[in-house]
């Protein structure tokens, strides 16, 4: 059994729950830092892609997981980030400035969507964001002068103070550092007043109003923050892809992000990263399985789509709290060892409250 022996209030809101946790995360950090010297450049590229997806997933989690607003169109912000960053770089701006401006521009777009989106909730919001993503996709395709239209846009290599960051190792560290920065910023936000207010909006708007939380303002800010983070991920993605075309930012990407967030476990930053890990590993895992399947099933990308759907269905039906939920259950089991109650995490089903009248 594990007990918290806190002697100061600040231990209650510290980043790690115990010295054991801190050491574990330190070990993980060490492994990640040492990895480039033991692993092939191809794997490094895959890991960089994983970090980029993690940042995008964190961005969506900020919105959907913490404020309860569903967005089925986050690929739009990834696209805005990618194309914006590529355009800024082509105009000769230095890398840090370009990243900052891209994030701000993406945040502004998020605000643009967020302000009208505040008036609607739940399903309607899902549809507005989906419509927005489709519109952005079409705009990118048709605005050839800036985005290169359907032929595409080449991206300059990243370089900081003259040194190129394009090599596999340097790009890996670049992405890793950005991920750590974003993660730390979000962790700090979530354990302070703003984070609590965001959760409050998700759970009960009436109570949030009564407590003095500016619900509309917070929702718009959440949209902006989420869009900004996702735009940053888009900027990094531009460097990873090296050549941008509109069909890299379709509705499918939006749904992939939603998958990450839902499978990872709504409402937790750890979940966002776990979800990103699972979803980015899935295609590689599928391509490993393909040789073992009969020929008729193994063809096309139909198999991948099917398995994505199947994994999501399994999680929604049997583990709604996602991978993070499974992690929490295992951890709680280990911590309260002989006294673990299986119903600690029992879901409360509500049959009488219709969500049509939210």
């Amino acid at each position, binding site marked *: 059994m594990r007990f918290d022996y806190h002697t100061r209030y600040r231990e209650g809101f510290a980043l790690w729950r115990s010295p054991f946790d801190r050491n574990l995360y330190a070990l993980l950090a060490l492994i990640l830092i040492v990895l480039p010297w033991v692993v092939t450049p191809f794997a490094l590229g895959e890991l960089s892609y994983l970090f980029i997806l993690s940042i995008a997933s964190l961005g969506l989690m900020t919105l959907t997981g913490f404020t309860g607003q*569903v967005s089925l169109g986050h690929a739009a912000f990834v696209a805005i980030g990618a194309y914006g960053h590529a355009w800024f770089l082509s105009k000769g701006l230095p890398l840090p400035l370009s990243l900052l401006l891209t994030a701000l521009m993406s945040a502004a777009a998020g605000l643009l969507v967020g302000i*009208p989106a505040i*008036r*609607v909730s*739940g*399903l*309607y919001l*899902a*549809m*507005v964001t*989906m*419509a*927005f993503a*489709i*519109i952005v996709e*079409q*705009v990118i395709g*048709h605005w050839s002068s800036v985005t290169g239209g359907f032929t595409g846009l080449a991206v300059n290599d990243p370089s900081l103070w003259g040194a190129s960051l394009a090599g596999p190792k340097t790009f890996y560290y670049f992405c890793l550092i950005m991920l750590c920065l974003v993660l730390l910023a979000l962790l700090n936000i979530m354990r302070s007043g703003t984070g609590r207010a965001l959760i409050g909006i998700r759970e009960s708007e*009436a109570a949030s109003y009564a407590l003095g939380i500016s619900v509309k303002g917070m929702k718009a800010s959440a949209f902006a923050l989420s869009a900004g983070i996702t735009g940053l991920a888009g900027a990094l993605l531009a460097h990873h892809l090296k050549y941008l075309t509109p069909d890299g930012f379709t509705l499918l990407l939006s*749904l992939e992000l*939603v998958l990450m967030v*839902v499978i990872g476990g709504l409402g937790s930053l750890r979940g966002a990263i776990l979800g990103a890990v699972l979803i980015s590993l899935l295609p590689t895992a599928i391509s490993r399985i393909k040789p073992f399947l009969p020929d*008729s*099933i193994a*063809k*096309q*990308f*139909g*198999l*991948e*789509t*099917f*398995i*994505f*759907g*199947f994994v*999501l*269905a399994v999680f*929604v*039906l049997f583990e*709604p709290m996602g991978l993070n939920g499974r992690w929490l259950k295992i951890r709680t089991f280990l911590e309260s060892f002989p006294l673990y109650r299986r119903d600690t995490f029992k*879901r409360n*089903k*509500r*049959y*009488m409250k*219709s*969500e*049509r*009248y*939210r």
Partner: protein
Amino acid sequence: MNAFWTTFAQLTLNGIAVGAIYALVALGLVLIYKATEVLNFAHGDLLVVSAFAAWGMITVWAFPFWLALMLTVVGVALFAYALDAFIIRRIAGQPQFAGVMLTIALAFMIRGAVSMLFGPESRNYPTPWSNQSMQIAGLSVANLQLVILGTAMLVTVILFLFFRYTLLGVAMQAASQNQLAAYLNGVRVKRVNSLVWALGGVTAAFAGVLLAPITMVDISLWFVTLKALAALVLGGFGSIPGAIVGGLLIGLIEQYAGVYMPDGTKDVVAYLVLIGVLIVRPHGLLGEAHGRRV
């Protein structure tokens, strides 16, 4: 001037024909939403399944068109019933988000399965009205479009009569408004909900089988769902007449936009309408505004 009116009238006729499809699909969506509070993102994939099933029956097994249509309708209805009975029912009581996610998952699975079984090529199959068109008051219209329009109207009228005058229809309305009260009055709510899903499947089957010869039999049929969503929002969520009105209007707006507005607008105008309606008048044209008692 005359040319303007001719074009306008032609566009209107086209718009109504296209809108009828959207209306039919939106009708299925709104039925399912009213009954089970789940927005069925997999509806478009039911269309895909219907189209491929019809193709298989007509070209591979050489069934006559009518037989294929009837079998597809019955088959997809059963499939939709099974989807609800075995899968969707399990998430009753969970927040709405879970339902959305589950239908998205089902959509992926159905799309993937169809992709795997049939491959990526577009196909087609003949109908009794393929390649025929008529002239009405100087405007040309494909016979198939007229059939689609007629089917949509027929289905709407039959559903209206069904909900109004049959016991089962009234039971469905009751179950969609207050499940507990319906239970207490002897309505077998779970079964009724699955039957509503079956009805949704019927509308999807009709839409799929009749639309596919126009737009080809492949997975991209599912895109119609998005237009149907715009139709739903425009007409008013949760309103059956609204779904129909919304579908027709979206069809018309698209046709007009194709000619009277800048290039490329036609593809996105439905989504612009969706966003616009949700901002300006969230409960659409015929829906009711809802609040919450605290």
